[in-house]
């Protein structure tokens, strides 16, 4: 393989973690998280580099990564809106939030705006049912949402 795409910091943190597990394969999930943090998603070259580091076959990396919904195997927008529509949130009006976003951005759920700024997806239960409806904007939770609160939040993004 040519030049490394993942940073020095990635490799340092993985080395530190390695002693925590009796097998190196256990690093796979933490490594995919760390790689996605650097790249925003997991392009094939990155999956290969993670596989090479952990010493598992690239096919195995893909097989595992595709099992988990948090790993983006396709690029996502700069702002990734994950709106929970599971039981507690749907009882509290999350469908309205999703529809509002679809209209606002002119896309359907699951899509990204052409300018690559926004991706809107329906999410399964986020564990914030007491403050439903809830969503994640990238890594952060936003709870007790209304359409106007959502607008306020979105209109203040760069």
């Amino acid at each position, binding site marked *: 393989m040519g030049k490394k795409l993942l940073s020095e910091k990635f490799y340092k943190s993985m080395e530190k*973690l390695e002693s*925590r*597990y*009796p*097998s190196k*394969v*256990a*690093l*796979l*999930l*933490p490594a*995919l*998280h760390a790689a996605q943090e650097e790249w925003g998603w997991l392009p094939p070259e990155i999956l290969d580099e993670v596989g090479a580091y*952990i010493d*598992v076959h690239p096919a195995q990396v893909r*097989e*595992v990564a595709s*099992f*988990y*919904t*948090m*790993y983006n195997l396709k690029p996502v927008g700069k702002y990734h809106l994950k709106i929970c*529509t*599971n*039981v*507690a949130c*749907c*009882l*509290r009006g999350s469908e309205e939030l999703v529809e509002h976003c679809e209209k606002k951005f002119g896309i359907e759920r699951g899509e990204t705006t052409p300018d690559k700024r926004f991706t809107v997806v329906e999410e*399964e*239960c*986020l*564990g*914030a*049912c*007491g*403050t*439903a409806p809830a969503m*994640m904007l990238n*890594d*952060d*939770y936003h709870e007790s949402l209304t359409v106007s609160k959502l607008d306020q939040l979105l209109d203040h993004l760069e």
Partner: protein
Amino acid sequence: MEMSETLFAQYFNEESRPLDFYLKEMGGYTASKKALSMNQDDIIAEMKKSNMRGRGGAGFPTGMKWGFIPKQSAKAKYLVCNADESEPGTFKDRDIMRYTPHLLIEGMVIGAYAIGANHGYIYIRGEYTREAKLLDQAIQEAYDAGCLGKNIHGTGFSFDLTVHRGAGAYICGEETGLLNSLEGKRGEPRVKPPFPAQAGAFGGPTIVNNVETLAAVPYIINRGGEWFSNLGKLEKSGGTRLFCVSGHVKKPGVYELPAGSVTLRQLIYDHCHGILGDKKLKAVIPGGSSAPVLTADEIDVVADIEPLMKIGTMLGSAAIVVVSEDYCVVKLLARITRFYAHESCGQCTPCREGCKWMEDIIERIEHGHGREEDLAMLLDISNNIAGKTLCALGDAAAGPVMSFVKKFRADFEAHIRGGKCPSA
């Protein structure tokens, strides 16, 4: 215990309690000091006396589970905390982790010592990034203070604890799916036996416990199993419970109450101040979305393990979802079933295919394209899933379908015959 005194909920505000506060105000790490000077069998005996039943969903007695771990093992043993909190409607473990992370850490030190494990993991759902960071910080504090790591409290016992993040898969809440995920694999449940206590994480004897289960352990050790057991009002169900109430109530949230001390009605109308807009109650799901549904006439039942089991449902993770009269139950069941179809790992044919079929049929009924024979077909499919799969996700998907169709048959029939929703 005074009514105002709670094990957890009194700290569910403001911010994460740092080590400092934990030591000074909560008697932090006195229980682990005490436990590490005890005989391991005595700790397990105390846990048995406490009548702690696992808070993850199955309600398995914790002391008995710990007792399954073999004393001698050629392979390393592990203690794993299930912080996946993936059952829809559940949001209590998040509060424990973000407000009192040290209770969980101390509980794990005690549990690890009792079963002879030197390594532990907190498997936390990937979405809880903030809680994972707070736990990492608390763990570092505990290491620095000699409460974790090598030679804890100078006793010679060592325990390393690592936070391991999941990545978005409900099935990783199932303990053997979780263990596969921890090992860097797809989170597919394993064939049992062997049970984790025999061969769990990395092939070693392993205990998997829920966050709330482990976070109660310091209290049990400090105040005694009998004290904990007596907090509960029914036999064989000790301690307090963190009820997660969501949906159409005026004051949703986490309520901590002595186990067996309240009915669903009291929770909904007294603690949560009743239904939004003072509407009528339609349905209650008492134990996370996989628990069979109850009608408004069935809520005078005590919200605990045995009483709910007796009426054909379950307390599960104590996640109570409340539905008012103007919400369509067919739509709700469609959403629940879509979830299980989406989360089926696909290993078992009845679960993989059955969940998808049920989803399609319920959606067709919801949208007014149902057929007369659909209800019989739904019951037939759910009967062919329940009890016939590798893990309990199959039952989790079948239970809601059977109970919704049975208890709200008229609503389903109205959709089929009238082509639209009667409550809309």
